[in-house]
């Protein structure tokens, strides 16, 4: 683009600038101020980083406040999981169990944490709000097998979700009061 280029003359350096000394002094001032400023280092294992809401950490299974496992082994998460990290073996709930009114429960529920990509689709798809990606982000183990989490470990990591839906309990109560469709 000839004609459109505007050339700007570089200002000649003054004598003080030619010696670099004023610049060096101002540089030293900057670094000195930095030295006295508060450090930005977070001392990680001692001080954990603040975890923002909605963070997608390790996927876990949760129980409801009554201690019932919320998963009904519908296997939606297994189907939706992009890396196929979830493996569910569905099973019936034995008669006489306090949770016998629930349709089903997983016999075994495995998540391979090495395959998991922490996308959160399982959480999104779960109709029972049984699987959650929680805050835990440090996972390690000494073998691949160790990082395939089974049901016990997933519940241990998940804990209890303090929701007040009690879907299945309400359904059972409705049935008992003669209202099959609620």
């Amino acid at each position, binding site marked *: 683009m000839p004609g459109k280029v505007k050339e700007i003359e570089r200002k000649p350096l003054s004598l003080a600038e030619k010696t670099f000394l004023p610049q060096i002094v101002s540089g030293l001032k900057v*670094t000195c101020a930095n030295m006295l400023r508060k450090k930005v280092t977070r001392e990680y294992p001692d001080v954990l980083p603040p975890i923002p809401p909605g963070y997608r950490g390790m996927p876990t299974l949760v129980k409801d406040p009554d201690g019932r496992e919320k998963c009904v082994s519908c296997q939606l998460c297994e189907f939706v999981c992009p890396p196929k990290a979830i493996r569910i073996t569905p099973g019936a709930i034995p008669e006489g169990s306090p949770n016998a009114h629930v349709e089903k429960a997983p016999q075994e529920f495995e998540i391979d944490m090495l395959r998991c990509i922490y996308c959160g689709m399982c959480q999104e798809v779960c109709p029972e709000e049984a699987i959650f990606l929680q805050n835990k982000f440090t996972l390690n183990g000494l073998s691949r097998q160790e990082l395939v989490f089974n049901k016990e470990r997933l519940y241990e990591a998940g804990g209890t979700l303090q929701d007040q839906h009690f879907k299945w309990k309400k359904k059972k109560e409705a049935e008992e009061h003669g209202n099959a469709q609620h």
Partner: protein
Amino acid sequence: MDWIQLAIEAGFGLAFIIVVMSMAGLTVVAERKFCGFIQGRLGPNRTTIPILGSIPFFGRLITRMGLFQLVADGSKFLFKEEIVPGHVNKFYYNLAPIVALIPPLVPLVVLPFGQMTLADGTIRQLIIANVDIGMLVILAFSSLGVYGTVLAGWAANSKYPFMGGIRASAQMISYELTMGLSILPVFLWANVPGSTEGLSIANIVVFQQTHWFVYLQPLTALLFLVALFAETNRAPFDMAESETDLVGGFHTEYGAFKFGIFFVSEYAHVIVGSGLFVLLFLGGSNFLPMLPNPWPIGIPGAILSTLWFIAKTSALVFFFIWIRWTLPRFRYDQVMNLGWKMLLPVAIANLVFVMVLLAKITPVAAQ
């Protein structure tokens, strides 16, 4: 008697080397710490030694200061496998670290590190060899210091170390001139006509009891400081090992303890250079300018003044570190231009100026 004298001097020499080497180690830690501080980090603060680290207060303090890191680094260098690459010249490859370490340690014998006031009021400078050519000895051995770098670069038989070696020797030749010329005005000023002190550093220290050269001759001090940075291969003049364009410079092919020796010798250079600057321009072991020395008579005074000298030297070492993490590295041609086209003419002009000034202000000595 002769043997006792010799043993005492050897003992002093050994003590001096121990002090300087441990200071070199501490400087490494200080460098990492202050570099961290300047960049908003904390620097090494985790390494700890099981029993020492669990002493209630000091263990924690030392851990946080990163001093145990020194032990960890040192033992790492010591216990790593000594790899000699197949393409090097074995003899010179092994010789180079030794050649690099000796020159910064030899000039220690002519550095007056303290002063002792005797009972009758006379002041003795504490120095291992009080010769009237002290400055020459320092210049001589500092000029030998480059051989370690050059040999390492040549023996490594690969291109980046070689470039580092070449650069080091060219830089050395260029800045030694400025260094010599910026020392002369100091000695001219301190030696009144008829003096027989010659190039003794102790004499400079004695002269600076009332006034320091750093404000008597600021330009000389600046020239000397710049030349010192170049001679010690410190940033912004660390051409020989500029990581951005030469991988690791002259010690690219070195590892384990041999690299450790190069590393320590660089810091020993810095410490000796700082000590020299303190002696020539910052009054050596004298207290403060225009104040009488408060050192008590006898041994306590000697220890206090020595500690004061070490404190001043440490302050200057800190300045070296501060500069390194502030300024970007020069380009190689800029280093050469600065040395030959700016510093050298200014140094010569400064020398002539001081000569004329001294001829004007000092009364003509008795012919």
